[in-house]
């Protein structure tokens, strides 16, 4: 069922004032829409004749929030959408562990050779949950860039950042994740044994 625009607007305002509860509520509202979108993306269907995730979220945003809102609202909305997209992609990967949907090309080769791709995705997913606690902005950037495939400019744009600042935080985030992923040998923390060798 479609939430009404007013509700979304009110929730966004509450998110802006730091209301985590509102953020979760908004997430729940957005999630089903994002799920549909993500499934389309992953199944190779072509919703709305386009693959442009950004454009889709924009449309969804207009549909849900009903009007042009402030830049800040938009940033929150996108951050939430990207988070939803991450959730959906991870769930999708979990449910189809054999599907080769996770091009983790950027990972060190020896890691890719010795690790299950799902494990790697779960590792990053888990770490992002940790990152959100201390570095919410960086976490959103990773979600928008890595899970959403946005360009640097788009990401800077929707988050209301200067391009160079976004790029700096993006690298910071990658470093943060890389260091921790290495520390736990690229395995989800839940499965990392203290004496594990790779």
């Amino acid at each position, binding site marked *: 069922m479609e939430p009404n625009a007013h509700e979304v607007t009110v929730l966004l305002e509450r998110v802006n004032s730091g209301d985590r509860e509102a953020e979760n509520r908004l997430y729940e509202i957005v999630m089903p829409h994002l799920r549909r979108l993500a499934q389309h*993306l*992953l199944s190779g269907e*072509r919703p*709305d*004749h*386009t*693959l*442009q*995730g950004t*454009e889709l979220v924009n449309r969804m945003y207009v549909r849900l929030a009903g009007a042009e809102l402030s830049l800040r609202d938009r940033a929150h909305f996108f951050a939430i959408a990207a988070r939803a997209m991450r959730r959906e*992609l991870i769930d999708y990967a979990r449910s189809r562990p054999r599907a080769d*949907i*996770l*091009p*983790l*090309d*950027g*990972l*060190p080769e020896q890691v890719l050779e010795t690790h299950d791709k799902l494990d790697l*995705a779960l590792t*990053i997913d888990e770490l992002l949950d940790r990152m959100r606690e201390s*570095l919410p902005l960086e976490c959103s950037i*990773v979600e928008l*860039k*890595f*899970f*959403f*495939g*946005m*360009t*640097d*400019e788009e990401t800077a744009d929707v988050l209301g*950042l*200067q*391009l*160079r*600042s976004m*790029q*700096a*935080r*993006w*690298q*910071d985030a*990658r*470093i*943060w*994740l*890389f260091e921790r992923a290495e520390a736990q040998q690229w395995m989800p923390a839940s499965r990392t044994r203290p004496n594990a060798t790779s």
Partner: protein
Amino acid sequence: MDAGQSNSPERDELVVNLFLAAMSHPEPGRDAFMRDACEGDEGLLSLVRRRVDWEGRLNGFLLKPLVARDRLDHPFTPGQLVGNRFRIVRVAGEGGMGVVYEAFDEKLRHRMALKCPRLEFRKRLSPEALKSLLVTDVNVCRVFEIHTEMTPRGEIDFITMEYVEGETLSARLPHAPLRWLATAEGSEIARQICSGISAIHAAGIIHRDLKSGNVMLSTSAGSVRAVIMDFGIAHAADVFSSEARGTPSYLAPEIWKGAPATVQSDIYALGVLLWEMACQRLPFAENAEWTDRLVAPPAPSGIREPLRTLLQCCLDANPDRRPRSVGEVAAALETGHSRRWFAGLAAGAVTCGAAGALLWSVRGKPETARFSTRPFTSFPGGEYEPAFSANADRIAFVWEGAREGKFDIYVQPVTGTGLLRITSAQGSHGSPAWSPDGSEIAFVRYAVPEDESGVYIAGSSGGQERKLTGMQPVHELYDRHLDWSPSGDLLALADRSSSEEPFSIYSVSARDGSRVRLTNPPANSRGDTGPAFSPDGRSLVFRRTVSSSVNDLYIVSTAGGPARRLTTDNRFSSASAWTPSGREIIFSSNRAGRLQLWRVAAAGGVPALIPNTGEGANFLSIAKRGSLLAYSQWYSDTNVWRYSLSGSGEAPVALISSTREDINPHYSPDSTRIAFRSTRSGQNEIWTADADGGNPRILTSSGGSLTGTPRWSADGRHIAYDSRPSGASQIYVIPATGGPPVRVTSAGDNVTPSWSADGKWIYLASNRSGTWQIWRTPADMQDGDGKAQQLTRNGGFVPFESPDGGSVYHARGLSSAGLFRTEIASGREDVVVPDLEPGFWGQWALSRRYLYWVRMDENRRASLYRRELASGETRSVALLLKLPIKDENGLSVSMDDRWALYVQGDQSGSDIMLVEGFR
């Protein structure tokens, strides 16, 4: 997350821009690039370096999105009708930014080009792309319209453009005439390119990616049309992706540093493009370091003034010194071809400043000189080492004066009258340094027995002198060795612990002469000289000489600690001084050809030329007040003279002469050609000329480093020479008719090459073992050090193979006497001429029959002697008009023993110049 500490957008902008520039810089010189670009800001450097290091380690981590982003690779297919109007014919081109189709406009019934950006276009259309619709110049590809097309993959925007048939300039270049720009067609194309860029600039657009591959040449009815493509639609690429930000060979140095594109950076690219048209190659090697691009290389031979200078101006590292508009470039090109402006200018003697004058004359706004420079002394003999007193009322300096060949300290008021001699003892004196209160002058006494050698202090109005500390004896002072701190309690001294060691900078107590060593130069270097205290007394700038004629400026704290390298381009500088504010160092360097004054921030950065003053400066001093600068200006006009050896009585003639240095002559084996080194182009380069001195042609384009000692191979087809483009001196081999040089050495410093008769070996002097020895290395092997053989053990310099090929004749070293012959097989060494004077290592020559050398008689007159190798019979064959130039290769004899080429200084000396209004 330590980078999170300084997250202001401004800081991010700076750090990420530098990071991006560093990442797009080739790896080998990346660190040096970063250091340069950060201009001494260590905090900034560490932030940038950390990001660069991390990016290497991250190795693309997370850069590829989990869900592959859809890029509009080939949105259309041939045969497809787009927009109900454009029939796609074929993919005409692809680049990082988009796909170009050839299409047929069914409505207007003509061919056009259709371009789709790879990234979604509609929201990303840059203001410049919109502006591109406004440009309607005949030399710019016409952009017609922006369309939107629905495709199964979504809406796609594309632009329709004029379809230009023809080939790109870069495709055409290999088939064009060698000196294309000098031809009517080439100059017409250049004019059209300028016209096109002018139109783009007039619309407020920076092209950003001007290059020969972006200029189309279309020919119809016999006339050529140049069309500028691909402008104004460049997107900023994703930051961590490898997409280029332009084409490196055409990127102005400031763009490498992360500065935004400007009209001036387009003009730089235009300069590169014109350079290509002028000589079929790029001005810098494609993999050249960013720092190597700071000094424009001299235009290759065959490019005449004023074009030569124009090109160099366009490539000036300082955007402010480039032509201000493309219109000016066009105007200079036009005048060049009409030859009106430059009728009276001697070829080769024009510098960028002169081209500036040309440009200003085109503008009608001649620049006025910023400084007034006048002679302070112009006594007979040489005056050197000016030093201002603390209140700037007097200048102490060194003068040969009354005692030829010996130097004394003199003081003269800045007003110019009242010369006072301070020293009169035996030996020579140098490096005068004032006490802060102006009452005393410290100086170095040298060329005396060891126990007298040292630092002395005398009253500045005359009076008793006292010795402060002894120092290692030296025979000549090539640099300032002494300075006195502003607080008066310390002196800085360049001294060494033994004659084998390099010089180090010592802090010496003015009270008791006790000393602390401040610097640790590398062994085998000449070491650290030229210390100068900063105005606050906390730092010293000095020069570290790593190899002959190669040094860099360093700064060290007077409290000790590591020295910080201030200049990094391995050029030569001869003097340095702080500005009164302490923020800048003024120094004299030949990095752009001749010695000129440069300024560099004490915090670090890129040196900038100070135009209009200080040419030939070899020592300088800056007054602490009154905006005064004094420098000593060495001038030298050395020429190659030809002496007849046949007893015909023919008078010597100046065979190769210019107003600059012409030196290091060498006859080709058949004696029909002469190779020599000359600064006539503004830089040290190898030239060749006919045997009568006519038809001089520049052979090398070494870009300002000392390049000399050309030596023909026995078959006359190649020339070996030494050059120092990146610090150490190396041997290069170049075809005698021109072409790319091949470097045959890479270990240590290698100088004074010569060939074996069979052409297989190049003999050379190398310090790769720690001392100067004669080696030979394969003549045809790049960096063939692994196959090189050491021939001497006791020291060797300037080798020539004996006529029988079994031995090598050689001098001993830079400041050793004697000529020797070492048998190659056994290593056995014989003394041949025991009394060849120290410093005369380049004053001898070998033909098939004779050994020649320059010898001084009791009255210090120079004669040319020769010894028949077979009989040992020795006699004088020519009285030389002037003394030889010490420490230079100055003699060559034709193989038929009829002629000798001898280099003589027809005018040389040194005066002290005073600059007023210096800031």
